[in-house]
């Protein structure tokens, strides 16, 4: 299974992390699930980070923004397939906070490390299980 994303959208979400540095950026990935469990991203929607109390090491997307994206995606025949955020001066791997706060099983969590203002690595992690057994698995990120 893999998350497929057009190169232009990958560059867009990486640039978002550079724009908000030294704060975390965040956004929603919208597209299609395929029969085999893979996903294709068709839109990367930048969102505001509501954690203005601690934006350098926390992110939160407003539920109202998620509701709007979910509704508009459904009308366009698309689904929310994942989310992205940046780790300013921290590796592109999930943190304990990321795990605690992750609830969208079956979706991808894409993380970009931004070092001194430059996007470095971008990795994708698939959230599997349910609330009791949830965990992240490494996921192939295919940019074309």
């Amino acid at each position, binding site marked *: 299974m893999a998350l497929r994303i057009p190169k232009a959208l990958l560059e867009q979400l990486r640039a978002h992390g550079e724009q908000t540095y030294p704060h975390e950026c965040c956004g929603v990935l919208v597209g299609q699930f395929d029969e085999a469990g893979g996903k294709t991203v068709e839109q990367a929607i930048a969102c505001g980070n509501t954690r203005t109390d601690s934006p350098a*090491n926390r*992110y939160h997307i407003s539920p109202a923004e998620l509701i709007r994206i979910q*509704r508009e995606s459904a009308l366009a025949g698309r689904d929310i397939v994942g989310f992205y*955020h940046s780790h300013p001066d921290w590796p592109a791997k999930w943190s304990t906070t990321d795990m605690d*706060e992750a609830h969208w099983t079956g979706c991808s969590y894409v993380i970009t490390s931004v070092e001194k203002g430059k996007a470095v690595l971008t990795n994708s992690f698939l959230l599997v299980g349910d609330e009791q057994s949830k965990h992240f698995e490494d996921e192939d990120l295919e940019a074309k």
Partner: protein
Amino acid sequence: MPIKVLIPTPLRPYAGKQSIIEVSAQTVGEALSNLVAQHPDLRKHLFSEEGKLRSFVNVYLNDEDIRYLAKDATPAKETDTITIVPSVAGGV
């Protein structure tokens, strides 16, 4: 005409893989009760063992968070849409 409930991606496996489910109800609480009656596997994903909506589950009536309305007692009518959306957050 019943009320539409939009089901988010992670909960669809527990809701017959449906993205929209229609329920008849007078309030949001009744709509959610009828939803889990139709799809019992959804219950533990929406509610705690004490029967309270889980803290990371947001429920909106149209564009309003029910926590800022009358919560479960929020009246719902046939033209309304209820949207369930788990929270999205994290950080290093």
